[in-house]
Every structure is written in structure tokens, then in C-alpha cells.
């Protein structure tokens, strides 16, 4: 693939040799990309590939460790997003940044209200807002005096774009602008993008929907593991090429051997047509002794599935069978008392009681099953000490004291503490959501061994991960989620390309007779 594309125009904005590291991760590794006026430039890559980091560096929200940013040929260094904004670089974040209780006009000109001696000229404000909305051709849809909260998601996005235009943006960065839009709204947005293109803006957007990337982008940049894989002209490539660029990597990690068929037992958990606000007709079977990998893009409903199975946000309709008996999983306590454990994605927010000792974290789940007024050392202090250290050894936590606060541990040890919490409560069904995110390589391997070890003891595991090698290396079967439902089931050791094709909605390898209305995706 051509690395350097010859264009007759000068680049409007360019990043050169950008490096950015976060503790434990090299988020951007020597990335150089050029963006041209009048072009739509898509940035794609797996989760954690560094797309958002790159955008934030360009918008001044992050400062790069090294490398240069050129804007209109000049070297710039932004200390604050406002500086980048003033230069003409605007960014629209995924989570919207509008004040719901303020009008469209007030939102567009927040901090830049037309005013004399501190008194805002409201007439002028509304006029200017109207003018901006007219400029992008949505003045008939959106009134400057409407409250932001009264607008649909798409309209809010248009207001954000109007805000960027009012800032005289020359570069407009959008982080997954279509993630939560319906197809009609996507069309509306795409039309607007095309129009802005003709005005000579450089438009940059991150997307996971390859179909839409191919529809509107002129160029595609692919990032992987913080590195720039390449920038290509859309016309010259196919979606398979892009997927290959996104996932083509060398395995750098040894995984424990997969399970064999004699390990697998009866079905312990079965979901039929499970739906709620986020999930749409999910079918799922989990057998004893197996690891069921769940892949899918961000926002495809992976975490929501885990939350439904654990009773955090239960299914509203559909049937669930637990160990052969029909049931409903109402809340986490109910799930835990039925021996289900959930290792959450965000350890600090959802997994750990950070300022409590390791010991108490390990025993939190088992204690919640016991009587409230039961003594914490029912069988004597020695017994509970032994229990804690046995758990610690099982998951290989290396600390000098179990009285240490959980917040003082490394990421790997923290994850082991969370794991041991569910081991202590003798869970038979484990749900892992991103079990190795942000963990060093050594601990990663150890955690993988533990997970596999659990299945040997007859535990059933559901493992959600956005790291495809992990999914492939660990799973005995793979379910791929797409738009809130199971997009398809793949056998063990499927290729990354196969998974990505299902995940991006390019190809449906459905094994069960699931009918999905694509329009009903995420609402």
C-alpha cells in the first residue's frame, strides 16, 4: 500500500513523529499523518489503537511527549484546547458537550457571547447563531432559541458542528460521530460532511463502521497499537484490505492450550431472545468447562450483555435458563447467590473498594452472602487468615501484607484481587469483561492461566475482550456482537479478519436462526 500519497495541495495540518505514552502503554508511537483541505479523512483501528489519543493531541487536550504539529505550515504547540480552537481546530467528542438546559444559541457561543460591558446582546446572539445554522444548512430544522435538551441526538451533533463552524474551524475532528445515530440521521450528517468538504475544511473522523467509512471518506488512516500502519486512498482499497491492516499482527503472547471436548459439560446458562434497552434478541448458550469469548466493537453491547447476565441491567424480555431451570436474574446479589461472578471492565470504579484492605476486598462478595451480623471471623481469626492467604496464593498476589489498601497495588495485582473475590464466593459461572486491560505482560499470562485453570475445575467462563488475540487465544467458542445482538458465532481459532468482518457488519456468520432488524440496532 502506498505510504505517501502525492497530492497537489499543501497539507492543512500535519503531525510528525508524535509519541505519547501513558503509564504502561505507548499510546502513540512515532505517528506521522498529513490532513488536506477539502478532504474527508477517516481514522480507523481497533480499540486501544491510539485513534482518540491522536485526535486529542491534535486538539490540544493532550500534550505529546515528542514530535511536532504543523498547522498551515507553521509549527504549533497547544497547551489548552482553547488555543487549538482559536487556531481553527475543533473537536467534537463522543459524549456530547452541550448544556442541556441552555438554548442552541447559548451553547454555540458559550464563552464567546457577543457583549458590551458584560451585557449580552441576546438579539445579536440569536442572529449569529441563526446565521451559523444557515451556513451549514440546518436553519430550518433547528431554532437558535430551542433548548439543547429538546433536540434529538443527531440535531445535537449538528449544533456541535455549527459551534465548530462558528469558531471558524478549518480542521474539524469528530470522534465516532455516527455511533448513536439512526441511518436517516447518518445520511443527514454525511450530507453535511460533504458540503463542509466543498468549503475547504479538513474533516477527520474516527469510525468503527467500515461501510460508512467507504461511503464518505477520501482517505483512510489505519492505526494499530499506537503505530501508523498506513494511509490509503479509499478508492484504491477494499474493506478486507483495511481489516487486514487493522489486525495484521504477530502474536506476542503465549496462551494456555484450549479446552478439549471432554472438558465441556452440560449447558449451565441459556438465554433465548433476551432483550432490554441496549440489547436486542440475544441468544446464548454456555457450557460447563468452556470459555466463551465475546468479541465486538465498542458500543456493540458487550458490556451490556455482561450486565444483563449479572442482573445489573436485567433483560426485560426473553427466557433465561440457569442450570436447566428457567429463571430471571434480577440483581447482582441474586446472581452472586446463584454462583455467578462478574469481573468488571473498570476495576477502580466497579471492582474494588480502593481504600479498604486487600483482605476485605477479597471477602466482600462472600460476606454479602452471609448474614449481616455474622462475625467476620466466624471460624476464628486463624481460619480466615488462612482463607485469605490461600486465595492469595491461588491467584498469585505478591504483597507483603493483605492489610494493604487496594489502591496501593499494581493493575495486575488489583485484577487478581478482584478475581479472588469471586473465587472466595465459589462462583461457577465467571463473566470477565476485559480481564487484562492495562495489565503488564507477565500478569496477563498469569491471569490467562488462572482463567483456563478455572475451566478445568468445571467453571463456565464468559470472556469479553476487545483484544482479538486474547479472544482467539483463549476462547473455545467465539460470539461476535454487533449492534446490540449476537452478530454471529465463530469456532475456536477463527481468524481476526473473520471476527472483524462480523463485528463491522460486513459478513454475518449466523449459526442460529436469529432474525435481526438492522434498523432496531441501538436506540
Amino acid at each position: 500500500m502506498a505510504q505517501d500519497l502525492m497530492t497537489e495541495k499543501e497539507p492543512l495540518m500535519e503531525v510528525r513523529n508524535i509519541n505519547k505514552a501513558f503509564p504502561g502503554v505507548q499510546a502513540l508511537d512515532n505517528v506521522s499523518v498529513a490532513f488536506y483541505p477539502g478532504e474527508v479523512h477517516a481514522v480507523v483501528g481497533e480499540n486501544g489503537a491510539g485513534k482518540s489519543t491522536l485526535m486529542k493531541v491534535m486538539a490540544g487536550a493532550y500534550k505529546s511527549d515528542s514530535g511536532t504539529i504543523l498547522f498551515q505550515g507553521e509549527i504549533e504547540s497547544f497547551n489548552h484546547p482553547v488555543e487549538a480552537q482559536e487556531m481553527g481546530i475543533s473537536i467534537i467528542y463522543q459524549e456530547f458537550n452541550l448544556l442541556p438546559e441552555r438554548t442552541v444559541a447559548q451553547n454555540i457561543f458559550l464563552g464567546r457571547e457577543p457583549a458590551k460591558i458584560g451585557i449580552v446582546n441576546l438579539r445579536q446572539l440569536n442572529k449569529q447563531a441563526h446565521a451559523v445554522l444557515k451556513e451549514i444548512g440546518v436553519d430550518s430544522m433547528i431554532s437558535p432559541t430551542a433548548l439543547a435538551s429538546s433536540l434529538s441526538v443527531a440535531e445535537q451533533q449538528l449544533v456541535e458542528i455549527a459551534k465548530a463552524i462558528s469558531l471558524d474551524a478549518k480542521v474539524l475532528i469528530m470522534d465516532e460521530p455516527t455511533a448513536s445515530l439512526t441511518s436517516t440521521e447518518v445520511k443527514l450528517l454525511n450530507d453535511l460532511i460533504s458540503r463542509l468538504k466543498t468549503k475547504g475544511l479538513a474533516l477527520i473522523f474516527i469510525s468503527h463502521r467500515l461501510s460508512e467509512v467507504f461511503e464518505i471518506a477520501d482517505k483512510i488512516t489505519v492505526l494499530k497499537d499506537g503505530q501508523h500502519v498506513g494511509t490509503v486512498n479509499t478508492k484504491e482499497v477494499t474493506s478486507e484490505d483495511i481489516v487486514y491492516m487493522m489486525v495484521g499482527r504477530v502474536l506476542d503472547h503465549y496462551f494456555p492450550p484450549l479446552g478439549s471436548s471432554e472438558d465441556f459439560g452440560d449447558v449451565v446458562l441459556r438465554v433465548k431472545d433476551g432483550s432490554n434497552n441496549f440489547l436486542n434478541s440475544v441468544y446464548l448458550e454456555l457450557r460447563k468447562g468452556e470459555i466463551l469469548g465475546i468479541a465486538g466493537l465498542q458500543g456493540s453491547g458487550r458490556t451490556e450483555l455482561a450486565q444483563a447476565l449479572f442482573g445489573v441491567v436485567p433483560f426485560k424480555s426473553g427466557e433465561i435458563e440457569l442450570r436447566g431451570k428457567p429463571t430471571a436474574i434480577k440483581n447482582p446479589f441474586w446472581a452472586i447467590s446463584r454462583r455467578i461472578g462478574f469481573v468488571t471492565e473498570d476495576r477502580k470504579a466497579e471492582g474494588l473498594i480502593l481504600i479498604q484492605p486487600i483482605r476485605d476486598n477479597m471477602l466482600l462478595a462472600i460476606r454479602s452472602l452471609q448474614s449481616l451480623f455474622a462475625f467476620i471471623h466466624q471460624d476464628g481469626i486463624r481460619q480466615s487468615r488462612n482463607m485469605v492467604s490461600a486465595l492469595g496464593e491461588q491467584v498469585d498476589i505478591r504483597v507483603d501484607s493483605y492489610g494493604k489498601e487496594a489502591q496501593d497495588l499494581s493493575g495486575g495485582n488489583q485484577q487478581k484481587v478482584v478475581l479472588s473475590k469471586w473465587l472466595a464466593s465459589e462462583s461457577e459461572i465467571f463473566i470477565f469483561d476485559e480481564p487484562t486491560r492495562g495489565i503488564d505482560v507477565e500478569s496477563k499470562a498469569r491471569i490467562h492461566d488462572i482463567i483456563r485453570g478455572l475451566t478445568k475445575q468445571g467453571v463456565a467462563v464468559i470472556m469479553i475482550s476487545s483484544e482479538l488475540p486474547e479472544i482467539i487465544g483463549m476462547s473455545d467458542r467465539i460470539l461476535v456482537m454487533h449492534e446490540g445482538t449476537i452478530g454471529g458465532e465463530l469456532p475456536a481459532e477463527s481468524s481476526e479478519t473473520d471476527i472483524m468482518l462480523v463485528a463491522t457488519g460486513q459478513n454475518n456468520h449466523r449459526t442460529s436462526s436469529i432474525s435481526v432488524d438492522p434498523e432496531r440496532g441501538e436506540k
Partner: protein
Amino acid sequence: MTTESIPADEIKRSKLGIRIPPVYYFLVIITVGGLILDILFAKGNIISNPTILTNILIRSVALGIVAVGQTFVMIGASIDLSVAYTISLTAVMTSQLMQGDPERVPMAIILVFVIGAVIGLVNGLIVTKLNVNPFIATLGTGLIIAGILNGTFANFKGSVPKSFRALGYESLGPIPISIIILIAVVVLGWFILSWTKFGAHLYGVGGSRELGRLSGLRTSRTIIVAHIICSLTAVLSGLFIVSRLGSGAPWVGPDGIYDLESVATTVIGGTALSGGRGGVFGTLAGVLIFGVIDTVFNQLGVDTYLKTVFRGAIIILAVASYSFRSKREAA
């Protein structure tokens, strides 16, 4: 700049910036209900007597003024529980400084406003720079003010001159001066919130501090100014109260529960505890609701202590009516 026509009615509406807050329907219901009760059980005194209507307003003045200030801090997602003591401090300081001498009035007023500004500044700094939860910060400063006040002014040593008492008792034509002041404060508050950059920024910072920062607003300064405004309204409230009472006592603020009631009326008026939403007209309605309830209870001869019970219940329920739908756990 294009200056195409915008639908005329929209410009008009937004120019005034007034949307009738839903709380006014509630106010109307309460008032009508109160009048019916009054006619049925208390010979219709309220409706037949304009003085009682005026008294509702006068009763609402002190609370109304400070509630306007409370609205400012609450829009900024903060809160000020020290206002009751600021009111006491003002009342005591004013009579102390005036010593019944009309010539000392301007000096005293200026000084108490300066003290109020300092209190607001300290509150704001503690909240923004020391990152102390505003509930705790202002409860703490309230205690400090109370301690200094009670320790320093163990006795009344002064009074306000007769001329100053006009503020509380005289009328300008048919309308009592105090009501004019309340209306002026509400209108000024509305003007600042709706028409000034500061107002717009306060809504921005209150709605989302992060967004405020990303939009280049001076978040800390905005919140500090809101706190100063709040303390200044508390001072004004204190001045009104001392003009009614003749001399200040350290307990006038806490006795009037101005801290809690200003929060409650603001919340009832539609200002969110989490900030970014609301306005002074809603707050005014909240204050009037309290005034009407008070007067009706008085006319019906409801036991005074029972009224305190109702107030506590109303405050809890008012906040609950906004909070119970929220998904987050409260603590």
C-alpha cells in the same frame, strides 16, 4: 455575517428570556387552595384584606432576597449554608455600627457589604481552591461566623436610626419599600443570569465544569463570584431584617432557618441541586409558596410547631421530587 430574518416570535420570546417555570402552576394551585380553605374556615380574611396580602409579600422579602443569591450558587452547582449566619452577622453589625445615628448609615451599609463580600470570597475560595465539598465548606464557615458573632456580640449595643427603619416599614405610594427592594433584587438577578456574560458562564460552569474549562471559561472565578453575590444578598436580607427589628440579634438568621429555606425554595423553584439549571423567577415562586402556606396556616390557626413539621416535610419532598428519578446513589 448573514442577517436573514428569524421567526419574529422566537426573537421576542428569547429577548425577554422568560419562560414561565412550571412551579407557578403549583403556586396558583396553592394560592387558590389556600383561599378556599380561608373562606371555608376563617371567614375569608385573606381575600377581603389587602394588608394580609401585603404581609405575605413582606414575610417573603427576607427569604426572597437571600434565595435569589442561593439560586446563583446553586446554578453554579455549589451551595451556601452559611447565609443564615451572614444574615445574623449583618443584623448585629449594622445596629452596632449605626448606634442609632442616621449619619452613620452609609458607612455601616458599606462596611457590612464589604464583610459580606469577604465571606463570599472565602466560601468561594474554599470550595474552588481547596476542593472542599460546598455543603461542608459553608456549614463550616457558618459555624465560624456563628462562633465569632456570639462570642463577640454577647450583648446588643446599638440600634438602627428611625430613618433606616423606613426600609422595613414605610411605603412608596401604596407599595411597601421592602417589596420594591425584593422586586428589584429579583429583576436584577434575572438580568444578571439572562443577559450578562457572567450569567451565561455560570450556567455553563454549573452544567459541566469540564465543558466550561474546554470552552475557555474561568471556572473558579465564576463560582467565587456567585458565592460573593450570594453573601451580598444575605447581607441585604440582614439589612432588611434589622430595619424591621430595630436592632440585630445573633439568632435572627438561624431562627428564620434562612439557610435551609433558601435552598428549599430554590429547589422548589426548579433550580437543580446539581447545577446548570433554574432561575430567579422560579425561586420567587418557591418563596411565595412558602409565604402563602405560612399565611394560610396562620389564618387557620394551625399550631406553629406543626408548621415547622410541615416545613421539614416540604423541604424533603421538594428535593425528593427532583432527585428520586436520578440513577446515581445519594449519600
